[in-house]
């Protein structure tokens, strides 16, 4: 699905921006598999390129949020004490603000646009990963191999990043995939409200703004059903990939079993999406 979105233009053969007012608001047909929108733009290619944007936002925001959360969680979790207390208080502060308010504040400060949306998400969404990683570090730092590392004179950064962190990859990966889904949905919500990415660049979210109009919802169903379906399917797919990744990353898993499972998951997803 990711691949098909990236190569949106090539697949559909039609540019998403090609405006053809005469053919506006047509239902799904052979030349326009998902119909056209009010300006006659081909929905399929709009969805595909919209997907490209949404996925880009989702992945990058999730990656950044996880990066912040992981680094903070690792240091707070391992060092504990005052540093931990300070970062915890910061995270609690950010968490108590309703996300919408925070987003509104940031958007008004930074303006709209894809990159700003990403930054906003990263700044407001790192807390769960932080908590997760911090918890893992609290328990892992008592493990015997960490003690052994200290007995061998390993430096703190080495222990944190080269030894404990790889053992926390599994929950981090899962958090990463879940966050992708969360941010895509968040972006959809935001853009639906008109606060996210402006309509000039299609994303699944702002394609859904069409559904603000009850007439559209009833009569021109293809304008919003397909974007909504795309979001749902992508989120599902991402979760399966996350599950598979988690198993594959565990060295305890017999390599053969892991390979087979990974194959099964890929095939399953591809089969479904096709």
């Amino acid at each position, binding site marked *: 699905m990711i691949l098909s979105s990236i190569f949106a233009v090539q697949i559909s053969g039609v540019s998403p921006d090609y405006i053809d007012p005469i053919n506006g608001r047509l239902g799904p047909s052979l030349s326009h598999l998902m119909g056209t929108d009010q300006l006659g733009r081909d929905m399929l290619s709009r969805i595909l390129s919209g997907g490209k944007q949404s996925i880009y936002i989702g992945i990058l925001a999730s990656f950044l949020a996880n990066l912040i959360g992981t680094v903070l969680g690792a240091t707070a979790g391992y060092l504990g004490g005052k540093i931990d207390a300070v970062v915890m208080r910061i995270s609690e502060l950010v968490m108590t603000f309703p996300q919408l308010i925070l987003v509104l504040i940031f958007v008004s400060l930074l303006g709209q646009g894809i990159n700003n949306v990403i930054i906003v998400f990263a700044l407001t969404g790192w807390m769960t990963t932080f908590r997760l990683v911090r918890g893992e570090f609290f328990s892992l730092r008592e493990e015997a191999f960490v*003690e052994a590392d200290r*007995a*061998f*004179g390993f430096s703190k950064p080495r222990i944190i990043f080269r030894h404990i962190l*790889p*053992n926390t990859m599994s929950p981090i990966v899962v958090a990463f995939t879940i966050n992708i889904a969360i941010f895509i949905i968040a972006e959809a919500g935001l853009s639906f409200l008109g606060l996210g990415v402006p309509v000039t660049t299609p994303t699944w979210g702002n394609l859904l703004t069409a559904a603000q109009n009850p007439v559209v919802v009833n009569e021109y169903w293809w304008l919003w059903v397909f974007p909504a379906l795309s979001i749902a399917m992508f989120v599902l797919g991402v979760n399966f990939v996350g599950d598979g990744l988690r198993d594959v990353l565990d*060295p305890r898993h017999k390599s053969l079993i892991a390979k087979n499972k990974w194959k099964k998951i890929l095939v399953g997803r591809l089969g479904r999406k096709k």
Partner: protein
Amino acid sequence: MNKNSTPIYKVGQIKKHFPVLGGVLRRTKGYVKALDGVDLEVFRGETISVIGESGCGKTTLGRMLALLDKPTGGELSFDFGQGLQDVTNLHGTDQMRFRKKVQMIFQDPYTSFNPRQRVGAAMDEVLRVHGVKDEAERNARILEACEMVNIRPEYLQRYPHEFSGGQRQRLAIARCLATKPELIIADEIVSALDVSIQAQIVNLLLKIQKETGLSFIFVTHDVAVARYVGHRVAVMYLGNVVEILPAESLPEAAEHPYTIALLSAVPSMNPNAKDQRVALQGEVPSPIDMPSGCAFSTRCPSVMDICRTERPVLKISNISKGDHQVACHLNKGAK
């Protein structure tokens, strides 16, 4: 053992008190005295076994000696080659210098290696951190260590979970040996293993000592193994060393009432042993609520008035003299 030589590691009145916080304002209510004034000397080339039951502080002592924990009182001194130096509060490069000489092996073979690191890479990393820059030399040391513990070099590519408990302990020993230490602290390293595997590891340790002349501090709760492995045995009770004596003279030469009771409680193949058993009443008192005077006074069958008020000090035994120290008011001390 040349008794006139200086020890390689000297423990001077080591204390480890953990504050117990309580109440709304979290004030210090009392102290858990995990270690309450421990004296010990370890000489080059010797194995000293440290025995005791749960709560006696032997594991805390082991970790303290490896500088994994800081004592709240007392001094640790180590001989790097130019006489004893204070190592109690080392940092940075000085601490690294210490860590190259003193290594530790832990009890649980299943968690002492990073599960995501191949064992060969783990050993290599230790050597790199210890400053062995030349890759060829690192490999040579690792191979030599593996040979000594009977692990085939091909296995170095594997992950820890692919080995059995006994093999993992051998790998842990190899990991320490590769750094060429002078002293190894072994904290209950055989307790989690089957008896026949225990025997393999014990034999291995003795062989290593013969070939390298390393010193060992062997912490265990198994009295028979302690006697078999060590040259000397130190007995701990509630944070104190109550007796130190040559291993071979056990069990006959034991003088401290706790040592005698401990030895008699060990199940034995000897049909008469059960009748001679000293049945200790009650349980070990809580380390927060330590009795005044001698820690063992509440359960000692030979308790006297002075035991309840004055803490006995480790003194050379009056009876066997020589290399035997007892902390008991029954021991009048050597003349």
